[in-house]
């Protein structure tokens, strides 16, 4: 006989709990988008788009539907916990649907309804905003989605990734989770967000983190060590490329990109040097994407006769 009582999940309360909002999005995309629900990539990165589930999986002919939360690090956006809506660490919710389904806009709007945004109570708008990442050799067309004038999601149809045409095109949704939650919960300060329904606030989870990390990003981080890290990541990326393991190379490109952002926050890269560092990061990321696409191409072509990378 079982002494353990059965577990019945409580119903979600996305309008009053940050984590319930996330769990609701997981529920939604798992059921309605047939998405794999992934966990965050375990590396520091500036945007969810850097996750291999987005960049690398946008390449090639195979269908791919995924949803995940990705913590984003933007060292220069740190405000020592003093700004009500700027953070050096925050969350994005990413959905990638390949090929882009015909009803992707309707799916997206239903996901908003699921977390409590009624489109007849709030003014939802699709406002032109094309996306481009020279670092990834990627671009797409789409919109920023406005809710009563606030940008809550970036909506993009990827046209190119790593310099290659997307065949087929993937639709990418990036929700700004904190903003969305602030809106839904009706709070003006991110630290006042209810993280869960048991009284834990976002501030309790992250405020001290923001203070310390802002200080480290701007004042403490050893710049010599950072320059060294950059050089090592760059070298390791090349090493991995020459060894034919482009996913590993791509990770080092991400690493180099983040270290560069830290160096920027420390203010030790001059305007002239900046362009050259950016070009180096771009070269690493693009080379990795290219190598990945080229390595995978034979397999893709076998599964999809007639398909070609270029």
């Amino acid at each position: 006989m079982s002494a353990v009582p059965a577990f019945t999940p409580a119903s979600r309360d996305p309008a009053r709990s940050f984590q319930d909002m996330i769990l609701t999005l997981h529920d939604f995309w798992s059921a309605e988008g047939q998405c794999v629900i992934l966990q965050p990539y375990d590396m520091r990165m500036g945007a969810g788009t850097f996750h291999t589930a987005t960049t690398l999986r946008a390449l090639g002919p195979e269908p791919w539907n995924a949803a995940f939360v990705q913590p984003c690090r933007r060292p220069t956006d740190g405000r020592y916990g003093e700004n009500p809506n700027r953070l050096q660490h925050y969350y994005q919710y990413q959905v990638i649907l390949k090929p882009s389904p015909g009803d992707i806009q309707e799916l997206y709007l239903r996901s908003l309804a699921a977390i409590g945004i009624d489109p007849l109570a709030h003014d939802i708008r699709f406002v032109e905003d094309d996306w481009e990442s020279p670092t990834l050799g990627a671009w797409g067309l789409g919109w920023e989605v406005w809710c009563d004038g606030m940008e809550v999601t970036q909506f993009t149809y990827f046209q190119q990734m790593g310099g290659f045409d997307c065949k087929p095109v993937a639709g990418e949704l990036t929700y700004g989770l904190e903003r969305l939650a602030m809106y839904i919960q009706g709070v003006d300060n991110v630290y006042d967000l209810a993280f869960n329904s048991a009284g834990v606030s976002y501030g309790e989870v992250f405020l001290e983190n923001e203070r310390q990390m802002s200080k480290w990003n701007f004042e403490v981080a050893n710049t010599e060590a950072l320059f060294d890290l950059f050089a090592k990541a760059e070298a390791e990326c090349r090493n991995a490329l020459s060894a034919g393991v482009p996913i590993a190379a791509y990770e080092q490109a991400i690493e180099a990109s983040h270290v560069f952002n830290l160096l920027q926050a420390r203010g030790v890269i001059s305007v002239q040097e900046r362009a050259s560092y950016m070009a180096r990061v771009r070269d690493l990321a693009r080379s990795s994407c290219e190598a990945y696409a080229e390595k995978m191409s034979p397999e893709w072509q076998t599964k999809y006769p007639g398909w070609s990378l270029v």
Partner: protein
Amino acid sequence: MADFLLELRCEEIPARMQAGARAELEKLFRRELEAAGVKHDNLRIWSTPRRLALIAYDLPAATEAVSEEAKGPPEGAPDAAVDGFCKKNGVTRDQLELRDVKGRMTWFAVIEQPGRPMAEVLAEAIPAIIRDFSWPKSMRWGAASISTDSLRWVRPLSGIVALLDGEVVEVEVGGIRSGRETMGHRFHHEGPITIGSADDYAEKLRACHVIVDHEERARLIREGAASVAAKAGLTLVADEGLVIENAGLTEYPVPLLGRFDEAFLDVPPEVIQLTARVNQKYFVCEDAEGKLANAFICTANIAAKDPAVVVDGNRKVLAARLSDARFFWEQDQKKTLRQHAKGLERITFHEKLGTVAQRHERFVSLADDFQGELADAVPDAREAAALLKADLVTEMVGEFPELQGGMGGYYAQAEGLRAPVVAAIRDHYKPAGQADELPIGDAATLTALIDKVDALVGFFGADMKPTGSKDPFALRRAALGVIRIITERHLRLSLERLFDAAAQLYRNQGIEVANASTDLLDFFADRLKVQQREAGVRHDLIDAVFALGGEDDLVRLLARVHALQAFVGTEDGANLLAGYKRAANILKKEDWRGPEGEIARTGEEDPLALVDDPDLAPVIAAKMAERHAAATQLSYTPEPAEKALIDALAVAAPRAAEAVQTERFADAMAALATLRAPIDRFFEEVTVNAAEAEKRAARLALLARFRDAVHRVADFSRIEG
């Protein structure tokens, strides 16, 4: 006669592309009709963010039948030739006719093109229109995009309604089949709407919260915004660009007024307006005194359950944006403009032309140099000159580049600089075109000139002149600005001296710039012609004065051109011009080179004429004057008409020359006018090409003197007519 409705539905079309898309749809539809030989002129084109619609009224039921004839080979030509002709024209041999062509029997094919039903023409036209449609940016989407050949559209195309006289025109493009069903408002209406025909299209959509006519939506926004402002006791700040943009973002526009925290009004009004407009597409309002009010108007795309909720959401977003703006405003003021200006040492003006900080140094020196009317403003201009571009490195201008100059003015004012210095910083980009206002005050006039001249001299000197449609450094606008300031303020200055001084300042900094004064003056002449055309000044007259050379004072030049234009419009002027041209033609035909030329031909060349020694110049001049005097001493008795011209010229030539010298251009023209009757009479009564060499030479010399006298006023050979 039948009406045709075409609706192309897709995901949200960027607002800025909708006007172009309507024009493109019209162009392609007309192209298709013309190709089918249908003359048609009654079209309506509409757009919303989610659809492009076209209605063609009164289309014929079918195209007209056409009969065409083709001439083939003659009778008896080889079989291969005749068969080839048949194949080319799609007929069989027994359909050919023999006809007599100039006595030779020749095969003809008569091709009857029957009229085609309009539905068939449209069924071919629609896919062609969609495939050939040109968008500023287009994309692929969906499963079909596994091939790069898949259909492209601005955003995914989702539906086609094609109804001719209420019947569906069957087409399929990119996997989308045409039909009679469309969608209403994204949120106000669920499920498809069935359209009966072109007649009920707009009204059926209206019933489903879609106002398909973009102009009607624009009107609703324009009037609705004005009305909500009025209800709040305010006046809308009209912004037609914003009206059109919001009309392109909505299918059911509802302007709503909200208020923001009054404390934000400390920030300059331009900043608030830009923040509201650029970032949020909101209108702003003014109060009864014409001051910016703490109100915004957003345009919702729904009839909201509770408009206050939508307004409140927008208010929060605007508040966050204004907080950022206020942060910049306060942050920027923690440094003086002079401290900001230090940051310009890192900012490159152009890789060949040094840094912006170096521009400041040149501005100061150039300001120091100014004489004439603006001399009194030099100290103020000099102070401003070192700060003109300081705002480029402020946070605010980084955020809103269009506030350059204006922000510098605000910061200058905030740190307590004197009003003329503030104006000289604020207005130095003015005028930004033909319609913009001039800088206010002498110091601002000076800084506005300096900024533009420095850029013109630098870019011309580094060989980066505008070419064709390419003018990346806006040099045409800069030149126009200089022209407007000088001519409208009647500033007397030598452009060439200014150009040379500016170029020297570059060189003093070790920046190599070539001497481009001549090119610049030509460039200014061109810009002046374009600019003066609007004022009704003839370009050939500007040429006629510029061609004299050495004129780089635009005020004097225009005064001369105006006098000239008045003169050539009179009967005397027109006749004198004719006389001038006749004289010039004769001199050209006779290859007249003046007394010197004649001397050369007679072998009595004066060796001194070749000597370039400056010390000898007066000696040579005296000698030549003697010669010229000799040429006017006639060895024969002149005919009365000849005498009359000689006498008239003796009076008019010095009078005209003196009038030009003293800038009395109307008097110069009046002096020339006295030559009209004598020159006419001369040509009537006197034979220039007399048999006697002496007479001929003297008369040619007389004509040359006449030509030269006229020429000192303007180069009449450049004048048209």
